[in-house]
């Protein structure tokens, strides 16, 4: 349901098509990779805060690559993820520097401080 709702509002037909392709790739992963990949996807929605469709799609495609590769090679999940799934999720998400919802607040903070105390780097 949620995915359908998102699709109504996200980008071009081409982006919709790529979103469905990526989703199908993740849905097709054998276990335990499928469950693991979906758990991370869910976390990215909350943590990543990426609002730019292109970046979100690139991220999703790279993530599908990672798990398809692991599934094809039979690499154990813990070899990929390490001891701390949160740390891994955040390291991965930080690799993408697309537009995020927090950007507006960052700009507002920089401006507020610049107005109060001119001369910063920002």
């Amino acid at each position: 349901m949620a995915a359908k709702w998102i699709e109504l509002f996200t980008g071009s037909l081409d982006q919709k098509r790529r979103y469905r392709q990526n989703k199908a790739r993740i849905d097709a992963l054998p276990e335990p990779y499928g469950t693991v990949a979906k758990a991370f996807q869910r976390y990215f929605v909350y943590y990543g805060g990426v609002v730019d469709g292109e970046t979100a799609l690139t991220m999703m495609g790279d993530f599908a690559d990672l798990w398809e590769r692991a599934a094809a090679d039979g690499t154990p999940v813990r070899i990929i993820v390490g001891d701390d799934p949160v740390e891994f999720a955040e390291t991965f998400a930080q690799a993408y520097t697309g537009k995020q919802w927090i950007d507006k607040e960052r700009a507002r903070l920089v401006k507020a401080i610049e107005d109060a105390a001119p001369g910063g780097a920002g």
Partner: protein
Amino acid sequence: MWGGPSTLRLSQYSVRLSSWEPTLGKQMTEMLKGTLEGIVLAIVSARPAYGYEITASLREQGFADIAEGTVYALLVRVEQRGLVDVEKVPSEKGPPRKVYSLNDAGREQLEEFWRTWSFLAERIDRLHEGGA
């Protein structure tokens, strides 16, 4: 608290080096976060490599248990920042494998990494010798 005398639980890096004291674990994780990108660029600068070759090379250098996903995330980051060129090579099973090679922007970034590293190492050594 610690996995054993020679096992450092360093969240995702989980570096295991028997000569290091377990109490260095947390620091090692934090310090590696800032330097692993430079280390990966240095490895790729020697010759183009697949992701798993880069992980294997890190292990040979003594970074024993770095999670493959962490290396993958770093490679994604340097790719996003345009520091490496990526060539996709078809694979018999699974998605195409990516071969990473350092480009001009990456070489510049690596030069800067070495300069920064030398600066830091020199300053910190000086502090250490001064018994601060």
